[in-house]
């Protein structure tokens, strides 16, 4: 074990990436705006400067930790440097904190406060480019951008979408799509990971809270809300609760207090997805259709297929996403009522999915509005609800049952595990523990494993993050690997790490992962086919089941 001294405290480390990480592991918070554990080191903001024994100043994010190093993180010199950096950043940032959606979560605001930056001596000179409101998922405000480059690295390194990059040079640098286009006209898939790492309000989730209030306050409309599996482990952090304790009961209570009429758990249609998707997969396997079959729940992945792999579209499952299926159920169940159908999702791309022409059935959108976890937390805040102390409530009948298999849709590998449980008929704790060991669990970017189902040996792969998906597809297309079934989730760690969830570090995301399996184990039913509501659902949909539960995306992008 190596050892270094930070602020007089002896800190042990082994294989730490940089001094910043060593400090973090030892509970010393060095400020930084451009560093992110999952991205490459940029060394741009210089806020993380530390001072060594000889008074030399260096950025902690680019400093390799060495045995015997002695550094200080909070000297007079460093404080002065940081104040100056912050002052200069504030000059090039449109500060409108009282009305900014990011207020309270803005790193720049936090550090300005922490380092006592009281007045700015230089003339204000922020970027005058207009706000880009073109995307259904994300809003980009260049006037608040401090050029930390996290969004650019996220889009390139984790997602490999590269829809944005830094254009121009020096003081005229801006983050921009190709040829200064708008996000909607770029290759952006709407995953929202850029917004998740943005330290300021330059990239934000499209806030549609006011739409929701309007619907709630409209007495001639009833409001039906479905809540996705991953929301139960994300929202609690906004209210100071631990990440690994699922809080679905509190969410239901909060929604009732907000004035929502019908509340459901999307896990039910996750079960429905499993029934449909498994049947589709077995059919393809039997018919000798081209495999692998790709999952279709993730809207950012679907968008990616359309943009980059249109030829793979026929191999993507035709099952609609669980959100869409629930939208269809709500429309059928309340056909004679004016229902405003809302989905609370961990996902920004769902906002765009809900607006797709394929999701308009009988001249009506299946889902009227998608709110992200963050937006729901905001509403709970706005309503003055003390979330942490809420009692639990149950979702509404007749769609109030769900199984653990539906809940685990929220994590990478979850859809696959649910399919395996269904195919193998695993309903007991014991059989599920056995499945958990087959290689489907874990937060690795790509997992490949085999299972035996009857007399077939099935090869399965699970990828999260679109860069990992690209790697996997390259292997499949080159013929290096073959799989029967491939699950892809665009966001790192799956929906629990979605762009609509509260921003979180990797440790927190791992806790959420555990939380989902806690919620799974709390379910008395663990495999989708056990869900007693499914019979009723199929009766409700009658002969329209296939029409309403499946989507046929156009094979090719319109040229």
């Amino acid at each position: 074990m190596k050892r270094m001294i930070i602020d007089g405290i002896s800190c042990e480390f082994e294989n730490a990436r940089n001094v910043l990480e060593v400090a973090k592991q030892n509970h010393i918070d060095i400020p930084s705006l451009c560093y992110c554990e999952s991205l490459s080191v940029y060394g741009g903001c210089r806020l993380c400067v530390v001072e060594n024994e000889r008074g030399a100043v260096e950025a902690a994010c680019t400093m390799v930790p060495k045995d015997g190093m002695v550094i200080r993180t909070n000297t007079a010199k460093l404080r002065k440097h940081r104040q100056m950096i912050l002052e200069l950043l504030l000059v090039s940032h449109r500060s409108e904190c009282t009305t900014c959606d990011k207020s309270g979560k803005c790193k720049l605001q936090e550090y300005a406060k922490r380092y006592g930056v009281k007045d700015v001596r230089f003339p204000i000179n922020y970027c005058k480019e207009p706000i880009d409101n073109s995307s259904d998922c994300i809003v980009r405000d260049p006037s608040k951008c401090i050029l930390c480059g996290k969004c650019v690295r996220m889009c390139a390194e984790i997602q490999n979408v590269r829809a944005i990059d830094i254009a121009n040079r020096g003081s005229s640098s801006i983050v921009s799509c190709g040829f200064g286009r708008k996000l909607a006209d770029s290759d952006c898939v709407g995953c929202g990971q850029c917004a998740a790492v943005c330290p300021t309000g330059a990239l934000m989730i499209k806030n549609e809270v006011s739409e929701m209030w309007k619907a709630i306050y409209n007495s001639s409309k009833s409001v039906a809300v479905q809540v996705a599996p991953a929301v139960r482990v994300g929202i609690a952090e906004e209210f100071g609760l631990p990440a690994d304790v699922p809080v679905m009961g509190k969410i239901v209570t909060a929604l009732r207090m907000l004035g929502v009429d019908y509340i459901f758990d999307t896990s039910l249609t996750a079960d429905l997805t499993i029934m449909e998707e498994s049947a589709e997969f077995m059919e393809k396997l039997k018919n000798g259709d081209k495999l692998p079959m790709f999952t279709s729940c993730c809207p950012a992945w679907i968008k990616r297929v359309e943009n980059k792999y249109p030829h793979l579209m026929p191999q993507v499952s035709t099952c609609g996403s669980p959100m869409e299926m629930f939208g269809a159920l709500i429309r059928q169940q309340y056909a004679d009522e004016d229902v405003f159908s809302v989905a609370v999702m961990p996902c920004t791309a769902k906002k765009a999915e809900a607006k797709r022409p394929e999701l308009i059935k009988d001249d009506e959108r299946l889902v009227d509005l998608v709110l992200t976890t963050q937006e729901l937390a905001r509403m709970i805040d706005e309503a003055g609800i003390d979330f942490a102390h809420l009692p639990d409530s149950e979702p509404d009948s007749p769609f109030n049952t769900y199984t653990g298999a539906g809940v685990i849709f929220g994590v990478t590998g979850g859809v696959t595990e649910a399919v395996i449980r269904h195919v193998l008929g695993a309903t007991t704790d014991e059989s599920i523990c056995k499945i958990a060991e087959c290689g489907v669990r874990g937060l690795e970017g790509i997992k490949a494993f085999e299972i035996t189902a009857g007399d077939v040996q099935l090869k399965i792969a699970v990828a999260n993050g679109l860069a990992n998906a690209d790697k996997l597809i390259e292997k499949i297309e080159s013929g290096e690997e073959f799989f029967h079934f491939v699950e892809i989730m665009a966001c790192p760690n799956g929906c629990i790490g979605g762009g609509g969830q509260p921003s979180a570090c990797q440790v927190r995301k791992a806790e959420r992962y555990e939380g989902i399996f806690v919620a799974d184990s709390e379910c008395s039913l663990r495999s989708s086919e056990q869900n007693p509501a499914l019979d009723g659902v199929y009766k409700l949909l009658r002969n329209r089941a296939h029409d309403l539960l499946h989507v046929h995306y156009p094979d090719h992008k319109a040229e």
Partner: protein
Amino acid sequence: MTKVDFKLIDSILEKYGCDKSKIIPIMQEIQAEYKFLPEAALMYVADKIGETYAELYGVATFYKDFSLNEKGKYVIKVCNGTACHVRKSDDVQEALYEITGMKPGDYISADGLFTIERVACLGACGLAPVCTVNGVVHPQMTPDKMRALIMDLREAERS
């Protein structure tokens, strides 16, 4: 609107083996052909070499020498390095704007003939203040010499 000859772009790409790391020489050759980088050409290159539009745009806008805007028939570079600056290159530039009817920020004159670029140093400080017209050096410029030069160029165009 400049029409892009994709066969020509193909030949440039072929020369560099569609190699991502050769993007700068590829762009230079395209620019040598069109005097600027037409958007259609860059999009074509991006698709061929497997880069995204955003990344190519980033490279093209980083270097001052690359232009995404169409240029005039005569590209006039006015040096504003230290030596030229103290020898009143500003006056020369002012005269140039006046006679071409352009203003700072314009990429091309209304008649499509001229583009004015203010550059840091042309490396000919002994000839200050210095200008180049399509690469031809004009030493010891004055506002009057500049006016005469533009008149000559216009005259040459007319005949």
